[in-house]
């Protein structure tokens, strides 16, 4: 463990508080526009920090993830205690700003009590008093009861920020804070005394800290926790006491937590706290959680989000694409024709374009997520969907990210952050790309329109539409099955039941929502953008080199298309397509489709334009191109049989539905999981799944004589 004293000249100030206390908006008010986003050591939990000038002194301000208490069983929960009490590679803070929700006073003061027991200097920011009206708790009384400065604040308007800053400066110079005298039962006191000698020395530098951290260990450490850096001696000491307590029919957790609440309840009379009436929230809930209206409004909200991502983002995406092709055209016109120009226009510019093109959907999805989170509706949506999501081993909060996967996996994977538990986040991430995203649509359209002539099943149902719906359903069902399977195998976690707060409805602060949209986009650009750019350039290189001599100026369109075709065939990508042909042959696919599959890694819809190049139709071909369709229908194997049979087309669509054909998705998974392990796993399992499913479809179809 071995914490380090913060010997840095810059004092460290930590912001702590329960979830839904308005802590983030206070942090934003304090930090202004500048904040850095990094990670806590050893865990993939975001650590927001900023350096803050307070009059003459500069402090480092760190925003702690929302927590109800300091006890922990996972490394993620352990962040709180390590940050406030000093853990491995983390310095002791000089001050903790505890954000307290005035509408939930006692429960919020529970965290403050734990912090004071650790003898951490604290300042209380009493937030949300505007919701309390006349029965608002008095900051002066809190200050008196707990012996720490208490400043009323309003995260919405920024009221009280200056007083909070002043209080931080004053408190940095103040002496140690009083330790609350919690009436722990004598048996628990004896447990604490017995554990103290086994604590690392830095954890027992004062008597109060030793007692508090011994109690923390008694409440947190057991045979099944996943805590980091707890040495064997401490584990043994805790387990000895726990066994003895159990034998004596005692429960250490109940004793410790009850004692704190008994003490807090005793202060309640002085604090005059009461929860404000929830009449408005109740009446909204009577509609939004109603068996009929509740689901109807939920479906409506989902429809709006889906429509916005699917269709609403289109004009913006079109704008980005037009802007980049305009730049590319002008660059070609200005720059001399050379390989460097090609690299710049077709590699770099196109690559940057393929990163920027994700922004409209990311911005839109985080606009809706921000509104849903901050209004309190996200918890209601999870409450409604929990029963359904439970069937596949997830909880209600996984629904919105999974549904967003129909639009695009990239923002959907970023949206998994709304889930608290790592296992749930990773599991949802692993299956999101199985939902048919909008980039698969052009591929489905091309294949269906080319190979399945418009006709009606039983004279009623259009076959083309049925196939399209079928592909979406297929992807969804496989995603649900994969969730159930992965959740029981690779991502098998201990069953931690759902426990979620349903906060009162609040009007979202638009500035906060905008800021989050911007933060997410910035993180995407800086951390996933680079990988996507490099991969796009590599793919461009694969498909362009070694290349053949271009036709002279003034060549006909046909000549240019033929040159593009031979050039692509001889490229590394073309050779690679031929190399993988044996692997995709059993799926009814040939090397030309193989080249299309390789090209599609840049983005699935690129499959269509790559096929345009392969068949010498030109790179401008889209899924509506008649000449591309004609070329595809005319393609024959060496034995003269057609390449594109309906069965081969179905096999191709199944492959596209399941394969992880998208470097951007992999890049975002790498960013979200901080490593190559999960993106590699995702790529391997999805490719294998796609291959097997296509194999079954094609070979099964052949056996049934459908070929």
């Amino acid at each position, binding site marked *: 463990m071995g914490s380090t004293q913060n010997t840095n000249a810059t004092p460290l100030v930590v912001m702590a508080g329960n979830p839904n206390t308005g802590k983030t908006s206070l942090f934003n008010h304090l930090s202004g526009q500048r904040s850095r986003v990094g990670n806590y050591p050893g865990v993939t939990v975001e650590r927001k920090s900023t350096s803050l000038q307070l009059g003459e002194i500069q402090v480092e301000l760190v925003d702690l993830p929302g927590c*109800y*208490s300091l*006890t922990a*069983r996972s490394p993620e929960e352990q962040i709180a205690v390590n940050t406030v009490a000093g853990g491995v590679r983390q310095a002791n803070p000089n001050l903790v700003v505890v954000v307290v929700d005035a*509408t*939930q006073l*006692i*429960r919020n003061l*529970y965290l403050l009590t734990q912090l004071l027991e650790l003898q951490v200097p604290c300042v209380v920011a009493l937030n949300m008093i505007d919701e309390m009206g006349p029965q608002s708790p008095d900051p002066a009384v809190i200050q008196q009861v707990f012996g720490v400065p208490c400043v009323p604040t309003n995260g919405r308007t920024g009221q009280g920020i200056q007083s909070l800053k002043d209080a931080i400066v004053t408190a940095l110079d103040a002496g140690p804070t009083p330790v609350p005298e919690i009436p722990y039962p004598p048996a628990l006191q004896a447990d604490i005394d017995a554990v103290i000698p086994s604590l690392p020395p830095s954890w027992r530098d004062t008597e109060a800290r030793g007692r508090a951290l011994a109690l923390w260990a008694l*409440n947190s450490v*057991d045979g*099944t926790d996943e805590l980091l850096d707890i040495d064997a001696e401490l584990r043994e000491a805790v387990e000895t006491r726990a066994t003895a307590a159990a034998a004596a029919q005692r429960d250490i*957790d*109940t004793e410790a*937590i*009850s004692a704190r*609440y*008994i003490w807090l309840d005793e202060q309640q009379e002085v604090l005059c706290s*009461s*929860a404000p009436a*929830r009449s408005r929230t109740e009446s909204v*809930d009577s509609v939004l*959680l*109603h*068996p009929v209206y*509740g*689901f109807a409004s939920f479906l409506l909200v989902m429809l709006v989000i889906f429509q916005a991502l699917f269709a609403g983002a289109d004009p913006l995406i079109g704008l980005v694409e037009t802007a980049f092709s305009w730049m590319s055209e002008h660059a070609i016109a200005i720059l001399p024709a050379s390989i460097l120009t090609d690299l710049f226009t077709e590699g770099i510019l196109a690559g940057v374009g393929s990163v920027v093109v994700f922004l409209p959907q990311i911005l839109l999805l985080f606009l809706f997520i921000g509104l849903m989170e901050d209004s309190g509706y996200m*918890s209601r949506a*999870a*409450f*409604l969907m*929990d*029963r*359904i999501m*439970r069937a596949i081993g997830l909880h209600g909060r996984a629904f919105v990210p999974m549904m967003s996967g129909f639009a695009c996996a990239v923002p959907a994977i970023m949206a998994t952050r709304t889930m608290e538990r790592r296992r749930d986040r990773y599991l949802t991430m692993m299956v999101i790309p199985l939902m048919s995203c909008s980039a698969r649509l052009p591929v489905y359209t091309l294949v269906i329109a080319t190979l399945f002539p418009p006709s009606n099943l039983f004279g009623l149902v259009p076959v083309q539409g049925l196939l399209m719906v079928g592909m979406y359903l297929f992807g969804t069902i496989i995603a649900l099955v994969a969730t159930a399977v992965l959740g029981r195998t690779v991502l098998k976690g*201990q*069953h*931690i*039941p*759902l*426990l*979620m*707060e*349903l*906060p009162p409805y609040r009007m979202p602060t638009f500035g906060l929502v905008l800021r989050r949209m911007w933060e997410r986009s910035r993180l995407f650009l800086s951390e996933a953008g680079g990988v996507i750019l490099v991969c796009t350039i590599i793919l461009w290189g694969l498909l362009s080199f070694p290349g053949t001599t271009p036709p002279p100026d003034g060549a006909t369109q046909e000549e240019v298309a033929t040159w593009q075709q031979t050039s692509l065939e001889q490229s590394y990508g073309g050779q690679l397509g031929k190399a993988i042909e044996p692997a995709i042959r059993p799926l009814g696919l040939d090397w030309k489709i193989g080249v299309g599959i390789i090209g599609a890694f840049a983005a699935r819809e690129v499959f269509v334009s790559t096929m345009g190049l392969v068949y010498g139709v030109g790179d401008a071909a889209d899924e509506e191109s008649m000449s591309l369709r004609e070329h595809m229908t005319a393609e024959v194997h060496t034995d003269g049989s057609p390449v594109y049979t309906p069965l081969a087309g179905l096999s191709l669509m199944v492959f596209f539905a399941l394969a992880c054909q998208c470097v951007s998705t992999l890049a975002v998974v790498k960013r979200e999981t901080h490593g190559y392990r999960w993106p590699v796993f995702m790529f391997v399992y999805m490719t294998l799944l796609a291959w097997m499913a296509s194999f079954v479809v094609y070979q099964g179809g052949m056996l049934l004589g459908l070929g």
Partner: protein
Amino acid sequence: MTLPLSQIGLNAPAAVQKVGGERSFRRRLMELGLVPGTEVTITKIAPMGDPLEIKVRGSRLSIRQQEASVLMVELPGDHAQVA
């Protein structure tokens, strides 16, 4: 008489007697204020029968039936009946 929270019905206040179940969940529930003696009420049942919305110390929490079935509560008036 004590009975599981899952069986007390809507809007009937009861007092927490003992929180059961897996340790980290039990601890989290208690740290949210559900310590023995605290009043708890089921305020809503989700449309599909699960989860439940419970009211405790003025805040609302969502908890699944399965977990509510190991949270033992005491209905008020029970003592009088026993006596």
